């Protein structure tokens, strides 16, 4: 197998990459007659398989006033069907030494099992049955609502930085439902019931709104046959309309939010900028944002860490990120925490200086090469984990990307130019489309800082 793709060779003439891209496995992708999509990611190193189903519905598809419903239904999907009542599915997974879990995000809801290969078809049958066969009684729904409320306590209410992040999202999106927390606003979670869950389930859980991703010791041929016999039998029960959510108007005013909690021992400043996602970006743009965020804020030699932590000694930590897997908007972020004696204002000003510099002068050729090598190497490291690959493909397809976009991502990264990175910085570090969040001990102490 050639370890170097032809396009890399072509570009290598200009600057030899220190890291070769690697093709990875051959991905198969097909759609059943009922509209269910299937992706197969072969990995023959161990006799195990990761089986996932992704529904193209998430928190951003909820009706206003019902926040948390997508996530609540995800929990309730473990309550059994007419054919497999109670926790029969979970019992069977446990009996074969399998693992299972589920997750909800703004754009998708997913369920997975990791099992020895020979049990895959059985898992497919269980999961197919669960697409339309869920049975809910108040007896199981009510305790589960309490579980979700405790989850909200554990993840959010106990944790000041998560609470700040929720408030920042609510401020960043003026109109789009990404402003709502995936887990929901607590008063709205409290009011969810069985009827809400079933209505949501009937509207969105149908084979024509689902993607099955299977990674592991399998071949596309056997999967196609097994999928026809299991998933293929489920009749679509709902028309799925295009996912059009309210979009953001032109954003005109920078926002700031301050979260004060007496338990905050380490203040920090965080800023989110509205950015395009991989799905909505112009060609090359989201890849330029990946490189930008990497150069600015990943690792000990990144610009922000170098300037704030090492050279100026004013911050304990500083970094940047870009999250681009989303149907409607991506997010570009920067953050820093002051050393004792320095203020949030000092740190924010230093971050702004670094951002202004990169917007004006761009990045060096060396920084560009280093970032590309690292991002491309990450895709090789990811091949070590079939579950990681399955999540990549599932999340991408559930947010409007294609299999080709995922597979060709290393090429797109290799093609990023320094000019494109500077252009991305100039365009998307736009204060008017941003929110800055301060995590502080008390509102009084923050006044002193500003």
């Amino acid at each position: 197998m050639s370890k170097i793709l032809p396009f890399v060779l072509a570009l290598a003439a200009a600057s030899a990459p220190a890291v070769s891209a690697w093709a990875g496995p051959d991905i198969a992708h097909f759609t059943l007659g009922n509209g269910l999509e299937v992706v197969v990611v072969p990995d023959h190193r161990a006799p195990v398989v990761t089986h996932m189903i992704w529904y193209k519905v998430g928190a951003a598809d909820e009706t206003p006033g019902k926040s948390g419903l997508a996530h609540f239904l995800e929990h309730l999907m473990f309550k059994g069907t007419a054919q497999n009542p109670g926790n029969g599915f979970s019992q069977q997974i446990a009996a074969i030494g399998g693992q299972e879990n589920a997750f909800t995000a703004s754009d998708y809801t997913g369920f997975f099992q990791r099992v020895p290969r020979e049990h895959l078809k059985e898992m497919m049958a269980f999961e197919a049955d669960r697409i339309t066969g869920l049975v809910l009684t108040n007896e199981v729904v009510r305790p589960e609502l309490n579980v979700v409320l405790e989850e909200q306590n554990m993840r959010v209410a106990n944790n000041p930085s998560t609470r700040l992040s929720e408030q920042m999202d609510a401020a960043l999106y003026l109109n789009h439902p990404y402003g709502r927390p995936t887990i929901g606003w607590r008063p709205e979670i409290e009011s969810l019931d069985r009827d809400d869950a079933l209505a949501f389930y009937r509207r969105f859980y149908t084979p024509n709104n689902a993607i099955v991703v299977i990674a592991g010791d399998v071949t596309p041929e056997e999967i196609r046959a097994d999928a026809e016999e299991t998933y293929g039998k489920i009749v679509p029960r709902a028309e799925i309309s295009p996912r059009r959510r309210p979009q953001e108007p032109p954003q005109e005013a920078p926002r700031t939010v301050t979260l004060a909690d007496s338990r905050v021992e380490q203040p920090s400043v965080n800023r989110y900028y509205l950015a395009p996602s991989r799905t909505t970006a112009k060609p090359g743009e989201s890849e330029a944002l990946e490189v930008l965020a990497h150069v600015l804020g990943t690792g000990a030699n990144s610009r922000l860490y170098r300037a704030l932590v090492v050279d100026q000694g004013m911050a304990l930590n500083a970094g940047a990120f870009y999250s681009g897997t989303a149907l409607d908007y991506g997010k570009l972020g920067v953050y820093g925490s002051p050393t004792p004696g320095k203020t949030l204002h000092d740190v924010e000003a230093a971050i702004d200086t670094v951002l202004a510099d990169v917007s004006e002068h761009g990045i060096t050729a060396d920084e560009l090469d280093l970032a590309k090598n690292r991002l491309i190497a990450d895709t090789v490291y990811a091949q070590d984990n079939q579950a990681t690959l399955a999540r990549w493909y599932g999340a991408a397809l559930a947010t409007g990307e294609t299999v080709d976009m995922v597979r060709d991502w290393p090429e797109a990264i290799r093609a990023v130019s320094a000019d494109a990175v500077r252009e991305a910085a100039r365009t998307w570090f736009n204060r008017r489309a941003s929110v800055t969040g301060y995590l502080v001990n008390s509102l009084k102490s923050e006044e002193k800082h500003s």
Partner: protein
Amino acid sequence: MNMMVPALSRCILRGVAVAIVALPLYAAPALATTIERVVSPGGIEAWLVREPAIPMIAVDFAFVGGAVQDPAGKAGTANLVASLLDEGAGDLDSKTFHARLERKAIELGFQAERDTLRGMLRTLTENRDEAFEDLRLAVTAPRFDQTDVEIIRAQILSTLRRAATSPADIANLRWWQTAFADHPYGRPVDGTLESVPAIGVDDLKDYTRRVLARANLKVAVVGDIDAEAVKSMLDRVFGALPAQPELKPVATVSPQGLGRRIVIKLDVPQAVMAFGGPGIARKDPDFMAAYIVNHILGGGTFSSRLFREVREKRGLAYSVSDSLVWLDHSALFLGGTATRADRAGETLELIDKEIRRLAENGPTADELAKAKAYLNGAFALNLDTSSKIAALLVQLQCDGLGIDYFARRPEMINTVTLDDARRVAKRLLDGGLLVTVVGRPEGLASTSAD
């Protein structure tokens, strides 16, 4: 917006997860994985699994002698060493060293645990020579430049300040302090706000000189590399280390404070608990029976007794689980949950009742059969990535279980009888619990004046 909300993940309390030095990883028969014992000309041993399917190499290793070897009054020394080993070595200062790693996308990291100092290297096959050189420098010639020491020290202190108001961290810390008062296991691996400032560069150098040696080194290599190349790597990387470490003797202990309940007030919505007692040593003939009993109580799956009673039936918590923890000088079982403040007393009573019920009556024949099936089947899932295999092989060496452990394991599971399970349930669970509770639990108070 891609905040993932796993619905059912049994999030172990962070601190508890850190405390578990050995994950429960077991072998099933007929695995594709073949382990090769490799001994270098210089006498250094490694366990190797060749896996040419992906062009990368994973090297994991451990020096026996972790945080237990911290000098008195200087808890956190091993942790500070681990955080600094990749901050410059030989003639290369921190910036230059990081740049070398980044240029070739080499991942290098170290971590202190109670009994070991662990290291991890990931490289693409094509960059392996440079990766091995970087690793050699890091373990044989770390710099500990004062500037880097102060940056990392400030970051650790910041983490400790944050942990000081995190309910899960407090519950866990207090549990270990109480169970292992006057023993190194009672000291936090990360150190304390008092001990970390007291650690000098001399302490770091002294720790490194005493602990990083060949006789207490365990190495695993997994990936695209053959035995000859591993042999030359072993001598090149580790050959210059002293033959023998200078380890202080550590007393064997049992957890203390059984029957005690300690309530620590904190203004959070939940009551976060850690509970546990004495366990069974890794090499004890009853270990496997204990592991099965623990699995039935609160390990593994969504069908454990604690999960069913606390979460599924009553919705008292999002997560509840417990694990066996085996250390070089002690053994315990330790669990955790986070529950509604107004029902904290009820939750703890329920957990206590389930533990006593299992201690008195043992598991049912059906539970035993299911637990065995689970443990036999689950093993393959621990061997599906190079990184997981490497970590497991180091753990098996640290536990002294022998290279044939995979082959012996199924029989060790299958020969556990119902009588064994009943006897060991009593032995494991009848000793009483030490419980720490953080929050504002209603109806719960400390059992002594804490």
